[in-house]
């Protein structure tokens, strides 16, 4: 049974075995070859890429859920050089739709630098502009003439956007295209809003694809601002600046029981969507938000703090009588009343009502410097309030022992001269009087939303500089003072407390004899204060007196507030609450 052709099978088997061995040998040789390592290293960049995922910047809402700062889609437009078929058409389209130079784009595409595969032509292109290019690219896909925009790439990403434009711009601040927050809330809470970027290795090989971790967006912030009250404050301020010829101004509306800022209007303002106009709008040292950053001598509005200190320390009572001769000497210097006149016998209500400098200087002298300045510091003067906005100014309260403090300062400080405060400091100090002695921390952040959970800010009492009894007494005095002296601030049907302040402006050569700062601080309804309003008009030209220019602005503001905040007149409100 010997097969004479068996040798053929043996030869075939041998050849196949040789071939198999050869393949195996070659596989091992290639793996072991030193060049193999070089190829592996060369291949590394194509394995995947380190990609940084930036979370969407957190949104900012007002207290009623209206979006104040959000994000919108914009495009990065670039060219994938390996996919370009018609460089001239790409360059032409870029020059027409993106305003780029034709020759520059053409050179970028046709003569790229070594190892460059992708060229960015433009970034932050608005969707309406990018859409035209996308449409044109699609139209030219199978164009018989050979024109093509193949290779153009459109990479959408998010950019900060402010739907309300300039509304509350001084409070919100802005975010640049690089994602950095400046001023206001955007700067103060920048890290919270920005979130945490995550850098991951993303393999090109789909076999190695892994689940991306959830990248949470930045925290969403809800502000205490009320969009409608903010708009009303800004309109009222703009109107007042025009009516009274003031250079600039501030209106702050705060809930004196919680410290929530309902509105903070200042000038100038800017459309936050055009933040690059900042330098044209805020010329020189113009602060972004005067309400917190610009200290000034407030004048007679500070008398409410002096009187609060005098009453609380027991130096005077509302019935204490003072004989006003029109002049008092303090620290060797003469102090006169605003009108230069002598007002005769006055009780303390009369002193406030007629805003008598001499009387308030006397109360400060009677208290003594230590007691007076202790109270002023307890009211927060000379320190930042800590409000959650970037760029707060601490003002200046000179103290005995300072190089530039003189004994006469005790007298002048008592009526708001020689002391520099910011409007927000006066608002915080005023809250102690409005709120039964409890001074609240002014804040703009109402709540923070992160991981689907909302965390509300709680009211913080930062001090009790005066007793509830003192606050009650002073409220009564200010109600009487407001109803008699500054009737332009009164709002029929509502019991309000308030005080005007007309302050001369210090210059390098003494006080300016012509120009003033006009201020007003007031709150209401006095038995259950829902709002505290601070007005400051810088250098009004229509009248130098706060009672003529700031008091009417207070009234206009309150007339709108009672509507927007649903505060009925006192008689109806007391009827609804059972006269409590």
């Amino acid at each position, binding site marked *: 049974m010997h097969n004479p052709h068996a040798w053929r099978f043996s030869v075939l088997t041998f050849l196949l075995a040789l071939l198999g061995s050869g393949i195996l040998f070659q596989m091992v040789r290639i793996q072991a070859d030193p060049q193999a390592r070089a190829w592996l290293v060369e291949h590394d960049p194509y394995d995947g890429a380190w990609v940084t995922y930036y979370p969407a910047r957190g949104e900012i809402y007002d207290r009623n859920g209206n*979006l104040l700062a959000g994000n919108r889609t914009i495009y990065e437009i670039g060219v994938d050089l390996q996919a370009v078929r018609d460089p001239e058409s790409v360059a032409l389209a870029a020059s027409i739709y993106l305003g780029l130079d034709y020759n520059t784009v053409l050179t970028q595409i046709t003569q790229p630098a070594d190892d460059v595969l992708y060229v960015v032509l433009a970034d932050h292109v608005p969707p309406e502009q990018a859409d035209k290019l996308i449409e044109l690219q699609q139209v030219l896909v199978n164009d018989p003439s050979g024109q093509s925009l193949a290779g153009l790439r459109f990479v959408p990403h998010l950019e900060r956007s402010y739907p309300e434009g300039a509304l509350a711009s001084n409070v919100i601040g802005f975010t640049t295209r690089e994602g950095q927050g400046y001023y206001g809330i955007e700067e103060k809470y920048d890290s919270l809003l920005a979130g945490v970027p995550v850098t991951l290795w993303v393999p090109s090989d789909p076999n190695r694809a892994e689940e991306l971790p959830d990248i949470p967006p930045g925290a969403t912030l*809800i502000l205490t601002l009320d969009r409608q009250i903010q708009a009303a404050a800004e309109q009222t301020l703009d109107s007042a600046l025009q009516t009274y010829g003031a250079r600039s101004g501030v209106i702050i509306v705060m809930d004196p029981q919680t410290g929530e800022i309902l509105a903070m209007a200042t000038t100038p303002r800017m459309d936050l969507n055009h933040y690059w106009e900042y330098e044209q709008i805020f010329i020189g040292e113009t602060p972004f938000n005067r309400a917190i950053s610009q200290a000034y001598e407030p004048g007679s509005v500070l008398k409410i703090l002096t009187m609060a200190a005098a009453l609380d320390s027991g130096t005077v009572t509302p019935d204490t009588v003072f004989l006003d001769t029109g002049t008092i000497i303090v620290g060797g210097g003469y102090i006169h009343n605003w009108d230069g006149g002598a007002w005769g016998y006055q009780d303390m209500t009369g002193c406030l009502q007629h805003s008598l400098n001499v009387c308030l200087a006397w109360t400060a002298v009677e208290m003594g410097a230590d007691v007076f300045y202790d109270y002023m510091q307890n009211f927060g003067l000379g320190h930042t309030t800590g409000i959650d906005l970037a760029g707060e100014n601490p003002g200046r309260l000179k103290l005995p022992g300072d190089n530039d403090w003189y004994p006469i300062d005790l007298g002048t400080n008592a009526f708001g001269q020689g002391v520099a405060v910011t409007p927000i400091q006066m608002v915080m100090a005023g809250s102690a009087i409005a709120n039964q002695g409890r001074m609240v921390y002014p804040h703009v952040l109402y709540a923070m939303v992160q991981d689907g959970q909302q965390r509300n800010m709680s009211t913080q009492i930062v001090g009790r500089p005066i007793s509830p009894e003192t606050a009650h007494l002073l409220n009564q005095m200010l109600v009487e003072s407001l109803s008699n002296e500054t009737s332009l601030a009164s709002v029929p049907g509502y019991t309000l407390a308030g005080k005007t302040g007309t302050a001369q402006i210090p210059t390098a050569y003494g006080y300016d004899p012509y120009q003033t700062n006009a201020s007003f601080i007031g709150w209401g309804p006095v038995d259950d204060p829902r709002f505290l309003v601070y007005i400051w008009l810088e250098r009004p030209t229509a009248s130098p007196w706060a009672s003529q220019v700031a008091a009417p602005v207070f009234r206009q503001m309150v007339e709108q507030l009672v509507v927007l905040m649903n505060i009925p007149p006192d008689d109806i409100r007391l009827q609804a609450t059972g006269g409590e």
Partner: protein
Amino acid sequence: MDNVTGIARKVQQAPWRVQRQWLGLFLLGLVVVTLMAGLHLNITTRTALAGRELQFLQDEILNARRVNADLETQLANLTSYSTMRERALAMGFHPARADEILYIVAPGYQPPAPVNLARSAPPAPVSLLLPAYRQSLLEWFSDQLTASNQTTTR
């Protein structure tokens, strides 16, 4: 002894049967290897497809989030204070004055509270990948055994 050797030679299989057995064994091995290679190819392909789908879905999620943020901002633009005010004025409305408002005492009335943007319940962490794409065969066996034990003990 010679008889025994003779019997062994007589029952020894024919050479062609031995060859056929070897060939059968070889073919069996070939079939097994082919099956394993086919299975491996199938799983690799499905994994690759799933990987691509995963990458695609992740891009879709990021895209949906971006579009959502954009739409939210567009909506806010359309309902901004200035736009709404202009629309209201154009429709003949004007801001209410205090003397135009009639207040009615409504027992139990609660003024509206500030907005609450919290989700009603925090979302449970959801994995995008099915266990089949994350588990080894041993882990899968272990899970199945655990599950069957739990079922039988109930």
